[in-house]
């Protein structure tokens, strides 16, 4: 495919990926039928997202056609085709959070960061993703940043939290 058509994924400026990191995953799963999703999950854990190069490599190793891999990747919301920021904000849009004002919180985050849901800030510090119920409805509205949950959010408290995370990042850089 790619070789013949000379498509973009073969262009020389595409980033180089260390496929050897995937070898243990391949050894474990490539012969087990039905493991494609598991392999993709592990690959995303390693690379942070699923670049075309990685999908092609998985295709070569497993014999599953790239078109099928792409079909699976785009079906499930967990898979990302683009890298994400350093801090992943998971904003709950579950029913309880919606009833308690999650949209307002989203507006506040977008305003503070200057991005829309699904996007990453220019400095690469934050990505905003909407998710369904985080299981802490009694604290709604709720968001999670890097596994830490913040509840009972208000328009102002959410901005304060983001500023704190950003400051922590900056002071980290100084060190």
């Amino acid at each position, binding site marked *: 495919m790619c070789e013949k058509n000379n498509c973009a994924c073969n262009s020389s400026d595409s980033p180089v990926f260390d496929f050897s990191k995937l070898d243990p995953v391949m050894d474990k799963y490539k012969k087990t*039928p039905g493991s494609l999703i*598991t392999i993709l999950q592990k690959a995303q854990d390693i690379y942070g997202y699923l670049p075309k190069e990685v999908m092609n490599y998985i295709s070569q190793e497993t014999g599953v056609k790239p078109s099928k891999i792409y079909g699976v990747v785009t079906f499930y919301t*967990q898979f990302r085709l683009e890298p994400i920021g350093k801090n992943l904000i998971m904003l709950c849009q579950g029913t309880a959070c919606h009833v308690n004002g999650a949209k307002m919180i989203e507006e506040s985050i977008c305003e503070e960061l200057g991005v829309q849901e699904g996007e990453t800030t220019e400095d690469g510090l934050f990505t905003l993703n909407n998710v369904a*119920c985080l*299981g802490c*409805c009694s604290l709604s509205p709720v968001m999670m940043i890097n596994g830490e949950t913040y*509840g009972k959010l208000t328009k102002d408290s959410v901005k304060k939290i983001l500023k704190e995370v950003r400051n922590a990042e900056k002071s980290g850089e100084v060190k």
Partner: protein
Amino acid sequence: MKVIVGQGSCGIAAGANKVFGEFEKLINEKQLNVSLEKTGCIGTCYLEPMVDIVDDMGKKTTYVSINPEQVIELVEKHLEGNTLVSDYMISDEDSDILGKQKRIALRNCGVINPESIDEYIEAGGYEATKKVLTQMSQAEVIDEMKISGLRGRGGAGFPTWFKWDAANKSPGDEKYMICNADEGDPGAFMDRSVLEGDPHSVLEGMIIGGYAIGAKEGILYVRAEYPLAIIRLEKAIEQAKDKGFLGNNILGTNFNFDMRIKAGAGAFVCGEETALIASLEGERGMPRLKPPFPAQKGYWQKPSNINNVETFGNITWIINNGGAAYAAMGTEKSKGTKVFALTGKIKKGGLVEIPMGLTLREVIYDIGGGIKDEKAFKAVQMGGPSGGCIPAELIDTTVDYESLTKTGAIMGSGGMVVMDETTCMVDMARYFLDFTRKESCGKCNYCRIGTKRMLEILERITEGQGKEGDIELLEELATKIKDGSMCALGQTAPNPVLTTLKYFRNEYEDHIYNKKCTAKSCKSLLTFTIDETTCTGCTLCARKCPVNAITGEVKKLHKIDQELCIKCGKCESSCKFKAILID
């Protein structure tokens, strides 16, 4: 003495890890002879973080809403000084809430350490497995389920014994027992709490079910968003293998059964059983036509049975106490108990397990403590995107499959979201349609395109662009989508619209014809004005307004230019004198 910190997702979110860490630090520093343990969610999430201190006589004191700074006080007074700290103790009223429930699926949640198989066994765990494997035939197990009247807790309410019987009778020696832990309802977390708080009870339910249908392998399909549940299940499986409850020749019998976990990848439709099977096989999670049912052709075309987490959570209790004891609870056609995630505008939100047949009023007022901030109760949403809104006038509806279905809502998997006068019902319908539109797998035209069209209309209405004929068009589309969709996702997607149209048609009409949102929730339909009597002319709102729509001189009444106003609400939130009026 023993200190137990609740560490379900809700507890952790409220800061339980920090509380645990503080206890750990102080107990070590002071070299106290105290054991520190964790447990799952007991359900009263609004009281988290919760700490139990059990003295040597076994007497338990429960402390609620503990923050890390208060830990030192508990350590010094209670652990060292042996005196109770009454300020932080759970109130009688709150402990009563637990008394009003009947806990079967949640029996161990918030009680035992979910990471310890020994504690589970001490609480009577794996007795049911022993009984089934050594004393009961497959038919006897299925019969016990039939007597219990247990119906699936995943939403559809199909009798469990019937499915097990079908899978048992289906020819083939390779069969699968699958646990549906995909918990898709975006406002519910019952299954997660059971998995996090009592993973062994789910495993045991699967082992017993596996035995009954003749399966050799069990697979748990767990939502990817539930990392803690996955960790605890992995541990539980390891422990069960070590103790010989999983593997070959379990308990010396010739029954072999193994178990593994498969993490989902984020697709609501994968909760539908045929889609779940496709996903297990590594495919896109697209549902297919039934029949053949999974009992005939399931995972890799082999006979398979799929049950919900909570369904499995009930099995051991039924085996230990007998199907008749289970059937003694509930109503004629809905037996036993059901777990609900009671959330929204409710005072005491959390997980509750109640016998079927209570009224919604009893759940919302007696257990949930009523509506937050003394607002008026408007409706309760049940069944998530497949369900509907039950209005205040039907609050005496009993919680059972048939009565709830009669209202147009469904029992669902257990989401119960309470709404008050500030919730706009048209916006709720829009919210759910937005969800189903995104989650439609795209196979059926009516589901894929129909939900999009319905969403567009609902968006239009909430933005003040609704027009004559929109309600009728919604109704027409709803019927077509129900008829034209293959799986239950599409067939039920219009329910949130249909129930709100049925009970709150006036709200739709207000939006369309009067351009009014009585709940004051749809921004485009609001008018912001400044109150002549309370405005002090402080100029703050004028400075905050992003579009310079507010004018006025210092110390004089300000005015909002309605043409320019974008209804962002910044003036309202910045005004210190409550002088901004919204209508």
